[in-house]
């Protein structure tokens, strides 16, 4: 298990390294330089470039960039008077986004499991169709449609929730709900399919034959065994959450990392864009890593083969 984990860990770092290199390479293609001022003479420009090391050979620049990255230095923001990118990316904003995401993840997963379980237990009934319809809607209606609509109906028209900003827990309900719906839809679809599969297994028939009550069969045998493959949806869930936070924070003007990212795109604040993209990359690669390690714990065959198909 240790060998397998180490292997996955190395793999994750290789991928992060590649992503960092690619993003550095892409930055070289970006139009313009930080010293675009017409008043600068050529000598002054050359001086500035020498000061920041922009006249060094590309390989030297690349090595310096990677070195800084390893020390956690992501450069300075162009738009915020040279504030270090790290302070912007890993500051208060990250905590806000993490809170929204975690709240949505917990609520969404619980609702998803509940919906999926009801659908599987009452297979082909009204509740099954009801839950299937909800999941299709939840997966298909994108957050950038759902968020403005909920904001319009529940906050603006009905006045139940605050329209925007992030000042109290009450402000987090609508944004989290939008995220949780996407999460719940994904979880419900998988839970239903998985539970139907488990219901057909011999050990479930045996449990029923032993005379266990329906509740005991479902909670002790079916639910537990169908929760294991839920690991598969970790990465899709992470993706759903991330795209969700970008949209939801923009729509509700929440001072989180996603709102910052969208704003940086609009003002071409490249260093912050790159820093945030790297943060997203770390988030994704970490979810891949957790998924792989959990796989290894659950299914020894994968651990021995070393890779998953």
């Amino acid at each position, binding site marked *: 298990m240790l060998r397998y984990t180490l292997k996955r860990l190395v793999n994750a770092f290789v991928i992060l390294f590649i992503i960092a290199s690619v993003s550095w390479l892409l930055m070289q293609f970006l139009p313009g330089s930080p010293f675009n001022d017409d008043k600068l003479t050529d000598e002054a420009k050359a001086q500035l470039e020498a000061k920041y090391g922009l006249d060094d050979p590309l390989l030297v620049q690349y090595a310096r960039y990677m070195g800084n990255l390893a020390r956690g230095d992501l450069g300075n923001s162009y738009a915020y008077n040279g504030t270090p990118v790290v302070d912007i990316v890993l500051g208060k904003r990250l905590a806000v986004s993490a809170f929204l995401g975690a709240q949505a993840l917990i609520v969404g997963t619980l609702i998803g499991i509940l919906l999926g379980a009801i659908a599987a237990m009452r297979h082909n009934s009204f509740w099954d169709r009801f839950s299937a319809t909800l999941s299709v809607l939840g997966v298909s209606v994108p957050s950038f449609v759902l968020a*403005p609509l909920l904001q319009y109906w529940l906050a603006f028209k009905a006045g139940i929730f605050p329209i925007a900003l992030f000042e109290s827990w009450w402000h987090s309900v609508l944004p989290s709900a939008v995220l949780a719906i996407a999460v719940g839809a994904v979880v419900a679809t998988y839970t239903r399919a998985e539970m139907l599969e488990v219901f057909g297994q011999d050990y479930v028939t045996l449990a029923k034959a032993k005379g266990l009550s329906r509740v005991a069969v479902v909670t002790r045998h079916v639910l537990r065994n169908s929760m294991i493959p839920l690991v598969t949806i970790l990465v899709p869930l992470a993706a759903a959450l991330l795209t969700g936070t970008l949209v939801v924070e923009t729509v509700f003007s929440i001072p989180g990392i996603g709102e910052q990212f969208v704003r940086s795109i609009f003002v071409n604040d490249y260093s912050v864009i790159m820093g945030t993209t790297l943060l997203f990359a770390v988030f994704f690669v970490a979810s891949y890593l957790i998924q792989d390690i959990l796989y290894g714990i659950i299914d020894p065959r994968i651990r021995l083969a070393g890779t998953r198909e």
Partner: protein
Amino acid sequence: METRDRQLTPELFQPAGLGSQDAEKIAGPSIGFWGDAWRRLRKNRVALVSAALILVLIALAVLGPYLTPYTSDGQDLSRQFRGPSLSGFWFGTDNFGRSMFDRVWEGTRVSLYIAFLATALDLGIGMFYGAISAYNGGRIDNIMQRVVEVLVGIPNLVLIILLMLIFDPGILSITIAIAFTGWTSTARLIRGQVLRLKEQEFFLASRALGAGSPRLILKHLIPNVLYIVIITLMFTVPSAIFFEAFLSFIGLGIQVPDASLGALINEGAREMRFYPHLLVFPAIVLCLLTISFRLLGDGLRDALDPRMRK
């Protein structure tokens, strides 16, 4: 009562004239794979309605702008922000007085165009890559799979955002960015299927009878992976529509004055409080499109691959 009174005569117990060779006779007409799938699909009302809806939406995306006397870029500041009405502008007008009906269907056309093009590229590259990798096997397969493994590890969203930053946002660059990140999963699916087919007896038999690579690929492999391609197509299109709309929403997609559904939704969301019709119409069209593609995809999967049915 009647049966009890009936006389049993020896004539009733004659052989029916079925010889041993007749037992093997196939009574019904041969239907074939596609006929069989069509019969299953025909019974699925949800899938049929979705297919019809998709056709209607495509038709409107093509013809919609011609149905009104207005154009999508005809500005007239004297008619800003009109609400939807049956006699004037069906979907109302926007901040420049442009007809929303025309803009929504032009946007749908752009979104569908990007989605279909990206899907075609994605499936084309994925199929080619996966098939070559699996068909050749051995070292080529090994190398090609390592490449895919690294690419799969790079998150789609991150890659698309990076690509959109260097390319000027436009229809072509969005298409390429979406296809570039999507083809790896198609390649894996196709590879898996081809590897399975290579192990099967009919493939071995054909090879033993002297069939060369072109015949094996054209006659045996392609027809047998086609159904996977169709199913994947149905799920790739809505996700491409979604990605394009998402990019437009965060400002990396289609730029003004062009519009896609995502760009229209973004504009609408800003004016929503006072002019909800700017948001509602493009949002409805986008949701109808993604939902019907997904439902048709589910139906086709059940019809083409009944074992997948849950």
